[in-house]
């Protein structure tokens, strides 16, 4: 009777293609060559867009934004595992995944240029708009997953991204518990980049893994090498398969690293060493996949050169489109408080427009 073990749990780690090019063929998700190239392309395009945005920000052509450099395997691998009618519910560090879904880069640029117009197309691509409040999107994902099942949309699911820091929020806990109790078709993907601005993971939680937090809810979990696009894809795919077939939620921890600053307003040298960053540059997910694709013969330097050219052109075009779109309705905020503006709002709009005329005349 007395002191007996009544439950036991474990956490597994998945890695398929490591930083030294070691590859586990048994675990490999066996994507077609086309698919592998699509996935790789998305990562390269994400990186290009990110670096371009950095330049624009430095030139004052964009506001503050959180770069995604280093996160490409997490985001693109996971997104690649979704279907276009699965909803993606992210935070603010999923730009390459948004592009994969077909949301034009222009939108992201508008968003970081301080325009709500940046999120006007999100829903059409089954993307929730960028979420700034950490952890806040997790309960949304659960409600959306519930709604899909409720409406009989069998086989659809939700993938929800968040950071290691966000895992400390109450909403994380409440959402995972709801998802578990409801057995909602939702996959939680923690982009564990080991930093929340200046706060290292060890100050965020004393737990060995983020994955094990799923044990609190009797939810399946796995930790994945987040710089291994084959592993992030496979883990997400497996979890989605389970979700689609009524098996409920999964928590996937993807261990990666934010290779540069938190946002363009941040200076990482205040809180972490160049050495640490260097170690992680050596694990950069993009070269890792590049070498693998070459090794298995689906890629070569010439294709790479073409791809880089291509992706540059696409990003250039998006920047051009973005910068030529300048016609914004100044009083749009009055349109979107309620479906139908109240009388008081219309009165305020009139005042706003008359102020505007005054200052244009001044």
């Amino acid at each position, binding site marked *: 009777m007395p002191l007996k073990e009544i439950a036991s749990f474990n956490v597994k780690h998945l890695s398929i293609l490591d930083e030294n090019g070691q590859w586990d063929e048994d675990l490999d998700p066996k994507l077609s060559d086309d698919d592998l190239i699509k996935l790789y392309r998305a990562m390269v395009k994400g990186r290009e867009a990110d670096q371009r945005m950095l330049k624009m920000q430095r030139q004052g052509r964009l506001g503050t934004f959180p770069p995604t450099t280093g996160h490409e395997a997490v985001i693109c691998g996971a997104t690649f595992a979704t279907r276009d009618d699965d909803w993606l*519910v992210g935070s603010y560090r999923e730009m390459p995944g948004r592009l994969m879904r077909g949301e034009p880069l222009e939108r992201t640029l508008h968003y970081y240029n301080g325009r709500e117009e940046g*999120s006007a197309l999100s*829903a059409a691509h089954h993307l929730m708009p960028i979420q700034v409040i950490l952890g*806040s999107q997790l309960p*949304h994902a659960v409600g959306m997953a519930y709604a899909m099942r409720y*409406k009989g949309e069998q086989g659809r699911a939700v993938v929800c991204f968040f950071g290691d820091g966000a895992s400390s929020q109450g909403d994380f806990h409440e959402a995972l518990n709801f998802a578990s109790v409801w057995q909602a078709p939702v996959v939680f993907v923690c982009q564990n980049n080991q930093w929340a601005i200046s706060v290292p993971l060890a100050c965020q939680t004393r737990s060995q893994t983020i994955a094990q937090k799923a044990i609190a809810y009797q939810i399946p979990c796995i930790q994945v090498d987040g710089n291994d696009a084959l592993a992030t894809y496979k883990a997400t795919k497996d979890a989605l398969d389970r979700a689609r077939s009524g098996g409920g939620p999964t928590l996937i921890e993807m261990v990666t690293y934010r290779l540069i600053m938190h946002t363009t307003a941040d200076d990482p040298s205040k809180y972490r060493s160049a050495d640490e960053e260097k170690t992680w540059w050596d694990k950069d997910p993009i070269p890792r996949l590049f070498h693998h694709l070459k090794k298995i013969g689906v890629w070569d330097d010439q294709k790479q050169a073409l791809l880089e050219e291509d992706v540059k052109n696409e990003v250039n075009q998006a920047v051009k489109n973005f910068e030529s779109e300048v016609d914004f309705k100044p009083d749009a905020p009055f349109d979107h*408080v309620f*479906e139908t503006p109240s009388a008081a709002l219309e009165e305020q709009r009139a005042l706003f427009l008359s102020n505007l005329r005054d200052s244009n005349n001044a």
Partner: protein
Amino acid sequence: MPKLNMVQAINLALRQEMAKDKNVLVLGEDVGKDGGVFRVTDGLLDQFGSARVIDTPLAESAIMGAAFGMSILGLRPVAEIQFSGFAFLILPQLEGNASRIRARSQGTMSAPMVVRMPYGGGVRALEHHSESREATFAHLPGVKVVIPSGPRNARALLVAAIRDPDPVVFMEPKHIYRAFKQEVPEAEEVGIIGQAEVVKPGEDITIISWGAMLRPTLKAVEALEAKRAARVEVIDLLTMSPIDARTITESVKKTGRCVIVQEAPKTLSMSSEIIALINDKALLYLEAPVKRVTHFDVITPYFGRENLFLPNPDQIEAALIETLDF
């Protein structure tokens, strides 16, 4: 017409809307088997099943956040917060997401959801069960805030709230959940959110109240009119936000005098806002300062002192007299 109390009237609204539209569902703590701690959702689980009447885990932020997620995909969730005293837990989700999704998405997404919550004093309840914090919600752009004053308008306004394309906070004055009955037609009635009601016309002074305060207000008016020739115009505010400025200013322009009665503390309350509105639109018509009968700016006392702190008909009558005689 059947006579219903407010609990039954709200139940009727939920039942009919759920029968009519399968996108309407109910979620919250104890709303299922228990039928809600006030029995407002009684019978719904049996009629509509557990996928539409959801006994959730005990977590208000997730109730709000999940309901928001459902509404994004076209459902029309009606979330219950067991007592408004715990509704501060939903504010981050309400303010941060539900109120904003329309603006955030430039009108391409919306959150047609309702949050119901019993509020206010008068039922000898525990700490956190007697506050009136409508002002906190009404301060938020993008959120509509409705407070019925009786069974019939509770039913009609809840139907309107459920059909409203925007998030509505529906605050139920629990003091009058079972205090009286009214005839409530079985046939559909849909209230108009944003519209106050002139419950009784008058020429000499305007009195504005809402929720459970309407009854002591009417009592005071009756007592006053029995004594004096003055005719009092009584306005039932019904919607806190967006506020019906027109009904208020038209009345005050006519009467030149105004008393406001509220259960909430004074500072930064609905009465402050109504006075500001009168300042903005009808100041020159005022023949006396607007007078307020309110709770005090103290921590809401436990029920042992509750009645000493809530406005009563005598105080309301005195305020009317003072303002008439100013």
